């Protein structure tokens, strides 16, 4: 359960020099409880800002964001343990050289014994059909493999919520389907931003963001309809 509350959560950049204060998210009150939530909207509409609020990578200028009762501003560390975040570009988030090393890195806080940690990392990769690339350089993997490795690393930390920011935008059709299937199979609550309207249509709830405001919010059919009317007039 995620809540954006207080007087409405606002994100703004302070004025500096000639630039005036800029509002990235206008006052928003939300309660996110559904298992599958999709966020859609044009480039620059504020999807990433909204998603980054959910794990404290962006903090509200006004209001509070609570994840399972934890305040993202005051309890950021605990919040990030609950919320796994998948970035658009997996290379930005794979911090070590090989899939096995990277998954092992996620397991560091959970498993003290090194050989046990290694074994678990290899097992998690094998579970996603990635055993054969476990010891390759992440630079030598396909886009889909990279994103699946990134997802494996995120899940290794056992988050209760997975937030994914356009996880399939950089992928070709086949890789996109793989990542989609992997996300669909998760037990966790998933909040994802996407330009893939088919993917959004599978969600329980869809939010449409435009100019830093929630323009529509509801069942996929209505919300996607509202988005199409916005774009196509």
């Amino acid at each position, binding site marked *: 359960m995620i809540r954006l509350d207080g007087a409405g959560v606002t994100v703004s950049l302070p004025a500096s020099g000639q630039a005036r204060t800029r509002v990235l998210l206008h006052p928003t009150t939300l309660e996110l409880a559904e298992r599958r939530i999709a966020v859609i909207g044009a480039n620059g509409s504020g999807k990433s800002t909204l998603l980054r609020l959910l794990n404290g990578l962006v903090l509200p200028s006004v209001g509070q964001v609570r994840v399972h009762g934890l305040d993202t501003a005051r309890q950021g560390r605990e919040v990030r343990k609950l919320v*796994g975040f998948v970035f658009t570009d997996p290379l930005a988030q794979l*911090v070590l050289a*090989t899939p096995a*090393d990277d998954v092992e*890195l996620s397991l560091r806080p959970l498993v003290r014994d*090194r050989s046990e940690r290694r074994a678990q990392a290899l097992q998690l990769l094998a579970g996603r059909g990635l055993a054969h690339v476990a010891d390759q350089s992440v630079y030598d993997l396909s886009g889909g493999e990279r994103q699946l490795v990134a997802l494996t690393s995120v899940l290794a930390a056992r988050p209760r919520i997975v937030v994914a920011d356009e996880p399939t935008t950089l992928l070709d059709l086949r890789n996109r389907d793989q990542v989609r299937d992997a996300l669909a199979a998760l037990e966790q609550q998933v909040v994802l931003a996407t330009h893939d309207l088919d993917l959004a249509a599978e969600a329980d709830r869809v939010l449409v963001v435009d100019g830093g405001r929630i323009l529509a919010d509801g069942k996929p059919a209505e919300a996607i309809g509202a988005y199409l009317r916005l774009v196509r007039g």
Partner: protein
Amino acid sequence: MNLFGLYVPGGTWLHRLGVGWKYLFLLALTVPVLLLALPWPSLAALVVSGLLLASTRVGARLAFALPWALWVLLAVLAGYQLAIERPDLAVVVSANLVTAIYASRLLTLTTPGPVLIDALVAALRPFRRLGVNPERVGLAIAIMVRSVPMLLDTVAQVRQAARARGRDRNLFALVTPVVVRAVGQAQATGAALAARGLGES
């Protein structure tokens, strides 16, 4: 190509040697020659690191090959020393740079990545009193090692941009944009680490 090389499993004496000793080798091969700045010691260190690297039996290409961007960097550095009529320093600077890479490969080709991090974290523990977070710094250094190929690529790009404006003879004109971009990459990595709750303990 990976500048520092990925771990290659094997059974040679360097594979079995404790990671602490390998870090010491790295320091012993690189720090004295930096301080001495004399051609013969620098060449000797290069030969020793090359012989040690050969003894890891990981294959000549993995052990010795250098990415082309590094050749460019070497040419720029050596060319600069020759231009100011210091052939001795041209030898010293080039040899030291290659020694540093080969000595680092001794470590990274024969030691799994997580072991390198564990060793760094342990070595940094005494500095905790000075406000150093060993877990975070260990991670940061491991990430730096991974991002060196990216940095070399940045150097090559910045150099091209500088050349387009006829400023590639001025090393300082190269350094500033390279640093700015490296900081940008470090910030992106920082966000990714924060999102994974790493380096915060």
